[in-house]
């Protein structure tokens, strides 16, 4: 318990509004009463650990993992990489990062996805990895297609990759989406618009990273992630009220 530290309060103003009528599903799925705020406890200051033994060799390669290397997925080859840090700037090492995405035509391999763009027989659409000691992660994948979705009559999701990140404690748990630099659909997307501060939304747009691209092979995009920090002080063990 000696390494247990209180979490920095979540800065709700950088996060999306739970209720955003242009994103119709949020209307009936957003709490109408305020959240109960309090300092983190042991239950948020601990969390599950996942070791490298969890991973298979192709887990972070979405081009090949669905066929276990037998055939490659169709699409523009992309290396998606970055670092996971916390609010104090420290790398978050050894943490599980999971992603999922549509195929190059904008279709998910999911029973509920009825868009008529075809499935790619060689593409499953998920991957995972564990950050290294510097908090670094990387995936090989294909650029996901934009896709239409049932919201307003002509809404389209920009190209995006869904990210799930654990961090060392359960209170740091985060799911977000990574967009791609220059996509004109970002400005039109009601889900992206749930983040009201444009400078915060910009932080979800991965930058084209030519220096880490490889000629005749793949383009790189860099997507850094920041999790909640943990307060470090020698004054934390006093009883409440002192």
């Amino acid at each position: 318990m000696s390494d247990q530290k209180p979490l920095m309060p979540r800065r709700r103003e950088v996060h999306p509004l739970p209720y955003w009528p242009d994103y119709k599903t949020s209307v009936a799925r957003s709490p109408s009463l305020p959240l109960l705020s309090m300092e983190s406890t042991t239950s948020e200051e601990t969390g599950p650990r996942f070791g490298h033994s969890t991973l298979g060799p192709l887990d972070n390669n979405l081009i090949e993992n669905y066929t276990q290397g037998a055939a490659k997925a169709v699409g523009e080859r992309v290396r998606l990489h970055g670092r996971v840090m916390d609010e104090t700037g420290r790398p978050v090492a050894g943490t599980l990062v999971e992603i999922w995405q549509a195929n190059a035509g904008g279709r998910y391999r999911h029973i509920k996805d009825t868009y008529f763009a075809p499935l790619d027989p060689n593409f499953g659409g998920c991957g995972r990895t564990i950050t290294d000691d510097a908090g670094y992660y990387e995936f090989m994948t294909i650029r996901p297609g934009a896709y239409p979705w049932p919201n307003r009559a002509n809404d389209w999701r920009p190209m995006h990759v869904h990210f799930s990140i654990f961090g060392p404690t359960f209170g740091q748990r985060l799911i977000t989406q990574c967009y791609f630099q220059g996509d004109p659909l970002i400005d039109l997307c009601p889900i992206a618009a749930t983040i009201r501060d444009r400078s915060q939304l910009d932080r979800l747009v991965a930058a084209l990273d030519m220096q880490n691209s490889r000629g005749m092979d793949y383009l790189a995009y860099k997507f850094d992630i920041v999790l909640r920090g943990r307060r470090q002080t020698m004054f934390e063990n006093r009883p409440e009220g002192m």
Partner: protein
Amino acid sequence: MTQSLDMLVETPSQTAGPYVHIGCIPTFAGVEGIYPQDLGLSPIEDGAKGQIVTITGSVFDGTGWAMRDAMIESWQADAAGRYAGQEGADPNVSGFCRFAADKDSGQFTLRTVKPGAVANRDGSVMAPHITLWIVARGINIGLHTRLYFEDENNDQDPLLARIEQRHRVDTLLARKTGEGSYHFDIRLQGEGETVFLDI
């Protein structure tokens, strides 16, 4: 001007969307063969100490509809109140589970051990509880809440004590429906809205 605080800002959340299962529980979603099995299938293994309990329930939206697409993660202590990674924790309790609403009925099931009371940094003790994190299409930032047990002594719990409208405490209490079985519904909005946490 002042010195810079030199802090980063947490990455904003976005909804997990309707296809969260592909990323988190792909086998459940029918995407088979990438991973040998889904992560967090069970929070316990054979030999876990304590009482095995089965908790069923649904996640309801503001219209009273049991959502078919919600995914829930749970995190809990072992029967002695220790979390995995803490000294003396039960090696057969990972404490972490992922489960989803049934696509036809909207009902979820969590089979686990009943956790023990948990000590805090300041010496206070929390009544036995399971932390839940709910994500789905239309939920723009994951919802944290807790499941307590109606047949435990919850009187001194520091979190429950902070709920001003005392009748809302009931939204965090699992109802005993039989020996080792409990029922716990989550209501995102409206009458009986679950207390969600900013913690």
